[in-house]
């Protein structure tokens, strides 16, 4: 068992752009930071067999996600000289054009922030037990598949 309770990364519904802006503003007091890197995942209106994706409905194996995310967090902090890292992933319905993933890394110099941000995004997509159900304009759906490189 982890010795401390893992941070919750999930929020209900889309990530609000105002929340992202507020998160950036909250770092103005941390003056040792010289670089922020931000990844925002936005729901895309793919057209599949003539049907357009209007939203993605996310579900997760929450307890396993939080444990896994805690392990990823510890590995990333061991690998990169980061000041901080914040991760927020949507659950429930997120419409096309809305944000469903917000990864935010900060460090003294840019390389650590940029590289760790990319690595965390890739690991989230490959390792966290989260599923996206793509909802089409005719109310049918299919389970989303991630492209894992």
């Amino acid at each position, binding site marked *: 068992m982890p010795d401390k309770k893992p941070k919750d990364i999930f929020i209900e519904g889309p990530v609000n752009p105002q929340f992202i802006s507020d998160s950036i503003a909250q770092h103005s007091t941390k003056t040792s930071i010289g670089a922020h890197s931000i990844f925002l*995942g936005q729901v895309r209106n793919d057209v599949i067999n003539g049907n357009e994706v209007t939203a993605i409905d*996310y*579900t*997760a*194996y929450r*307890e*396993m996600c939080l*444990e896994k995310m805690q392990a990823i967090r510890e590995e990333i902090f061991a690998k990169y000289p980061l000041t901080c890292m914040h991760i927020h*992933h949507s659950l429930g319905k997120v419409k096309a054009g809305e944000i*469903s*993933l917000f990864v935010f890394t900060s460090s003294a110099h840019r390389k650590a922030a940029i590289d760790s941000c990319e690595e965390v*995004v890739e690991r*989230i*997509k*490959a*390792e*966290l*037990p*989260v*599923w*996206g*159900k793509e909802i089409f304009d005719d109310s049918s759906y299919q*389970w*989303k*598949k*991630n492209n894992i490189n």
Partner: protein
Amino acid sequence: MKVSVLTFGEVADIVNASSFDLKDVEDTDTLKQLLEDKFPRLKETRYAVAVDKKIVNQNVTLEDASIVALLPPFSGG
């Protein structure tokens, strides 16, 4: 003994339940076989098995109150 089964994504659709209990299931292979017999579409579906939140790649003996999760390919982000 009783184990809890959690299902997600396409697997939850196929078994038409997101959680249920099973009694006297010795190991993960037996559990998979039982469900695949009952829900043949599972045989054509890719999924991983996690026992108590850890993905297992081999047959694992189950204990009372084990939590077995059936995880189709992840698609977060």
